[in-house]
C-alpha cells in the first residue's frame, strides 16, 4: 500500500533475521540475565536506528514516523526478544522529558543513554489511593527556595528497582480542585531519601515496586510543565503513544490444534459444541480487531488519526486471553493445571487479570468508551469542583 514502507518492512525483517538470534530469551533466565539481555538488544537496535524510531535524531532516536514504528513492532513481535523492559521508559517517560524538559543540553545527554538502554526511566503516577483516579495523588512537593521537597509514596511503579530516572506526579496545591493542584517533575532515582521496595506479583514476576519519598530535594529545573499544570503533562505521558501495537492475542491456532488432539469423555474435543462456540467467538473478535488495526494504520499513513474504535482493543485483550486460557485448560483436563513453560495456556490465564487492570481497568475503559466516544453523561462525582483538602 506504500512502497517506501514496504521497503522499510523488508529492511526490518532482514535486520531482525540477522540480529534477533543473538538476543533470544531462554527459559529459566534470571531477572538479571533478562535485563542484561534487554540492554544488549536495545543497544543493537540503537546502532541500527530501531531503538526509538519516532524520537528526534539529536536525542538518539531515528526521527521516523509512527508508521515506521508500527511496522518495526509488528516484525519484532515475531522474535522472542526481550521487549517489556523499556516500553514505559521509551514510550512514555522519556518522550515527556524530551518534550517538556528545560535544558537541551541535558536532553542531548540523557536521551541517547535511555535509547541505548544504558539507563531506564520509570513512571511514578499511581499511589495507594490514586490508580484509576489519577488526579487524587497525595505525594506532595513543597517549594523551598529554588528547590522542591518531595514526600509521600508511589505504588505499582514498574521497574523502579532498576530505574536511573523517573517522572513523577505530585500535589503542589491542596487548596484547589484535585486536577488543578498537581505538578510534574523528573527525579534521579538514586537521590537521597528515595527508597524502593519490590513487590511480587502472584505470577512470580518482580517488576512492580513501592517507592517512598522522604524529604527528597530536587531543583526547580527538573519541573516538567507549569506549576500546578502537571495533570495535563500526565495525560500527555499516557497518550504519548497514540497507537501501541499489542502483542497479546489469544493463540487461536494452538487452541484449535489442542482441541483436535484432546478428548472429552472419549470424544474428540473439537466436536464439542461449546468448545466450537468459543473458538468461533475468538476468531470473530480477532477478525474485527485485525480490521480496526488495519484501518488505524491506513489513517495514520494518510496523515490522519486512528478512529476511536481502537479503544476497544485494550478492553477485549484481557477478557479474550482469560477466556482462551480457561478453554485450553479445560481441554487439557487435569493436565491443564500444570504450570511453567510446559503449559503456556495456564500462564496466559494467570496473566490475564493484570491485562484487565494495568493501564486502565476494564470498568474505567468502558466508562471512557461510553462517555468520550458515545457522549453519555458521567456518573455523579462528589469530588467535582471541591478543593482537594476539603474532600472527605
Amino acid at each position: 500500500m506504500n512502497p517506501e514502507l514496504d521497503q522499510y518492512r523488508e529492511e526490518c525483517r532482514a535486520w531482525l533475521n540477522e540480529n534477533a538470534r543473538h538476543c533470544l530469551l531462554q527459559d529459566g533466565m534470571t531477572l538479571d540475565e533478562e535485563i542484561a539481555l534487554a540492554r544488549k538488544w536495545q543497544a543493537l537496535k540503537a546502532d541500527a536506528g530501531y531503538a526509538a524510531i519516532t524520537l528526534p535524531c539529536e536525542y538518539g532516536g531515528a526521527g521516523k514516523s509512527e508508521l515506521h514504528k508500527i511496522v518495526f513492532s509488528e516484525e519484532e513481535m515475531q522474535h522472542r526478544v526481550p521487549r517489556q523492559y523499556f516500553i514505559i521508559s521509551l514510550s512514555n517517560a522519556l518522550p515527556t522529558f524530551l518534550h517538556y524538559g528545560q535544558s537541551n543540553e541535558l536532553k542531548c545527554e540523557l536521551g541517547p543513554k535511555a535509547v541505548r538502554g544504558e539507563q531506564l526511566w520509570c513512571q511514578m503516577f499511581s499511589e495507594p489511593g490514586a490508580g484509576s483516579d489519577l488526579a487524587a495523588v497525595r505525594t506532595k512537593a513543597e517549594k523551598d527556595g529554588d528547590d522542591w521537597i518531595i514526600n509521600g509514596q508511589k505504588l505499582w511503579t514498574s521497574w523502579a528497582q532498576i530505574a536511573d530516572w523517573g517522572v513523577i506526579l505530585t500535589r503542589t496545591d491542596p487548596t484547589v480542585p484535585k486536577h488543578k493542584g498537581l505538578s510534574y517533575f523528573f527525579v534521579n532515582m538514586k537521590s537521597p531519601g528515595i527508597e524502593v521496595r519490590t513487590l511480587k506479583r502472584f505470577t512470580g514476576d518482580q517488576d512492580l515496586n513501592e517507592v517512598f519519598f522522604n524529604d527528597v530535594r530536587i531543583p526547580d529545573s527538573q519541573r516538567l510543565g507549569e506549576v500546578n499544570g502537571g495533570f495535563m503533562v500526565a495525560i500527555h505521558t499516557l497518550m504519548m503513544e497514540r497507537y501501541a501495537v499489542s502483542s497479546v492475542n489469544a493463540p487461536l491456532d494452538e487452541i484449535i490444534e489442542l482441541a483436535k488432539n484432546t478428548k472429552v469423555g472419549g470424544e474428540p474435543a473439537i466436536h464439542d459444541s461449546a468448545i466450537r462456540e468459543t473458538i468461533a467467538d475468538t476468531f470473530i473478535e480477532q477478525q474485527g480487531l485485525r480490521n480496526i488495526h488495519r484501518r488505524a494504520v491506513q489513517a495514520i499513513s494518510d496523515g490522519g488519526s486512528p478512529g476511536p474504535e481502537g479503544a476497544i482493543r485494550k478492553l477485549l485483550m484481557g477478557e479474550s486471553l482469560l477466556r482462551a486460557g480457561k478453554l485450553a485448560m479445560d481441554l487439557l483436563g487435569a493436565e491443564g493445571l500444570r504450570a511453567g513453560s510446559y503449559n503456556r495456556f495456564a500462564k496466559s490465564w494467570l496473566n490475564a487479570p493484570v491485562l484487565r487492570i494495568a493501564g486502565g481497568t476494564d470498568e474505567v475503559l468502558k466508562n471512557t468508551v461510553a462517555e468520550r466516544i458515545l457522549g453519555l453523561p458521567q456518573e455523579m462525582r462528589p469530588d467535582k469542583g471541591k478543593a482537594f483538602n476539603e474532600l472527605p
Partner: protein
Amino acid sequence: MQSSAQTADEAIAREIERVIASEVDEPRLKALLESPASFDLPLWKLAVEQGWPGLSLPTDIGGLGLGWRDLAEVAQVLGHATVSLPLIQATVVARVLMAADNAQALRPHADTLASGNAIVSVALMEPGDAGLAPVPNLTLKGDTLTGAIASAPFANVAQLALVRAQRNGKAVLALVELNEAVTRHTAALIDNARAAASLEFTEAPALVVEGASALGDVLALSALMTAFEQIGGAAACLELAKSYAMEHKAFGQPIGAFQAIKHKMADIYTAIEIARGCALEALQELEQGSLSLEATAAARISASRAYDFAAQEAIQTHGGMGITWEGFLHHHYRRARSLALELGSTAYWRNLLIDQLVAGAKV
C-alpha cells in the same frame, strides 16, 4: 433450613472452622503454594486426632455417624479457607467400599479411611481426556493394574488410590495400594497445595470395587461434595470483594458506589446462589436416596462457574491490589481452577447433563 440434622452439621462445621482459623494463617497457606505437591501434614494429623475423616461415616466403622449434610457444611468451610484436606475423599470412598458387592473384602480399607490412618486419592482422570472416556486406558489384567493416571489431588501423600480401569472392555472401579509397583510423578501446578501427583502403574495389585453403581456413585458424590467446597470458596471471594468495595475509594467515593462494581457483586452473588440452589437440591435428593445425574451435573457445572467467576472478578474489584503474591485472592483463583478440572471439566459434565435430559425428555 430447619430439620434437626441441621444443628449437628452447624456445630461440627463451626468447630472445624474455629480450629482451622486458629491453626492456619496466610503465610502457612502461601508456603504450601511455593513448592510442588505440598500437603499440610500437621493439620491433617490434627484433623485425624479430632476424628474429622470419619465425621460422616457410620459409627460401626469408627465414624462419628453424621450425614452428608454435615460433610457439605464442612466442605464449604474448607473451600472458604482454601484448606486442602482429603475429607471428601475419605468419606466418599469409604461409603462406596461399604456399599460394594464385595464390601467384606474391602472393609479393612474403609476402616483405615474412617480413622484417618490412610489417605485415599480419587484418581479417575486419564491423560489426554478432559472427562472420563467410556472405556479407560488403564487396564486390569487378572488382579493387577497397568497404565497411567493424570495428576490427582492427594496422590502424592495417599496410601490408596481409587481408579477407573478397564476389565474385559468395561470400566470398573479399583482400589490400589500405592506401593513399589506404582510411580508417582509430581510437577509444578498452578495450585501446588493439592498434594497432587500423576500415577504410573506396572502390574500393581488392585482390588476391584464390585457393584453396578460403584463408579457412578464415586463420581457423583465427589462432584457434589466438591460443589459445596467450591461454593465456600466463591462465597469467600464475594466477602473479600464486597468489603474492599465498601472501604476502598476512588473519585471521592467507595468504589462500591459505582454501578459497574455493584453489578459485578450482584452477578457473583447470583452465580453463587444458583450454584447453592443446585447443590442443595442434589443434596436433598441424596438424603432421600435418589441422587440423579442431572442434579449432580447441575451442581458441578454451576459451582465450577461460580467459583471461577467469583475469584476472577474479586481480583478485578481489587485493581492492582488483586494481583500481588502477598494478597490472598490468587489462592482462590488457583483453587477455583483446581476444583473445576480435577473431576472432569465443564465440557464433560455439560455433555453428561444434556445426554441425561435428552434421554429423559417426554415428548
